[in-house]
């Protein structure tokens, strides 16, 4: 299998097999120091991004900071 399918912030996304979280973010043109990632309901800490591989069917959520009270 060369490609895997993910759900990324509610949208289906297809990426190359063995893509890690950091590569996924870069591919989405996301500034790395501005976001946090949840994969399958668990927080993936920044330090784990480059060693965490995306897997078929992963539900990945990217969170950022917004204004709030």
């Amino acid at each position, binding site marked *: 299998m060369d490609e895997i399918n993910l759900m*990324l*912030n*509610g*949208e289906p996304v297809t990426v190359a097999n063995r893509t890690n979280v950091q590569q996924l973010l870069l591919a*989405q043109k*996301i*500034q790395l*120091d*501005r*976001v*946090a*990632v*949840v994969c399958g*309901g668990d*927080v993936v*800490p*920044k330090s784990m991004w480059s060693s965490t591989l995306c897997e078929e069917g992963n539900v990945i*959520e*990217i*969170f*950022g*900071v*917004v*204004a*709030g*009270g």
Partner: protein
Amino acid sequence: MLTIADIQFESRLFSGTGKFCSSKIMLAAIEAGGSQLVTLAMKRLDLTAKRDDILTPLLASGVKLLPNTAGARNAHEAVMVAQLARDVLGTSWIKLEIHPDPKYLLPDPIETLKAAQQLCDKGFVVLPYVHADPVLCRRLEEVGCAAVMPLGSPIGSNQGLATQTFLKIIIEQAKVPVIIDAGIGAPSQAMQAMEMGADAVLVNTAIASSRDPVMMARSFAIAVKAGRDAYQAGLGGVSEHASHTSPQTPLTEFLE
């Protein structure tokens, strides 16, 4: 000087960053108000939209950031959001707010206590947003919260200190700083909170939704300072003892 956890604050006016019409005005208002602690929220990114980066200028301004858990409807979600915020912002400070009720956005005391316990255990500096409930505030203190943030009135309502009687009890009892959050709609109300002995107030809507947020922030800063000064100077008591309405039987005559 106000100390929360191990951080000192000169300004006792904390600000929210929501509801401003632009981040430029938001930043100008924070600067004018002199806030050293400002709140932020966490949100799932809309990957298709252009993102308005408020973080870069806020980080540059040097204020301390206090992410909140708004949007969380239970303890589990709040703990998750706190972890996300810590991962992004590198701060273990968290304003814990859990409101499952979409109409009045009133905080859930049971989930809040549960989440506070878990977050404190994980080493977070927890500032819970709660109803003005003195017993709950004590319980939150017992699990290790660094401050408590009881509400004055429903969030965004500008109704002021509708919970005054209970806020007084909380202030009297608290061993951690008490920050009055939510509902403060006018500088006079912020001043009243400070005169009562609150350690700080958190204001957002009243500043953000005013015609001139910068001027309003400045006005809040003055009110907060005046209220704090008045509290420290010691307000004159409201005299009750000198004006009895009916003649009384002397109680100490037997000592003569």
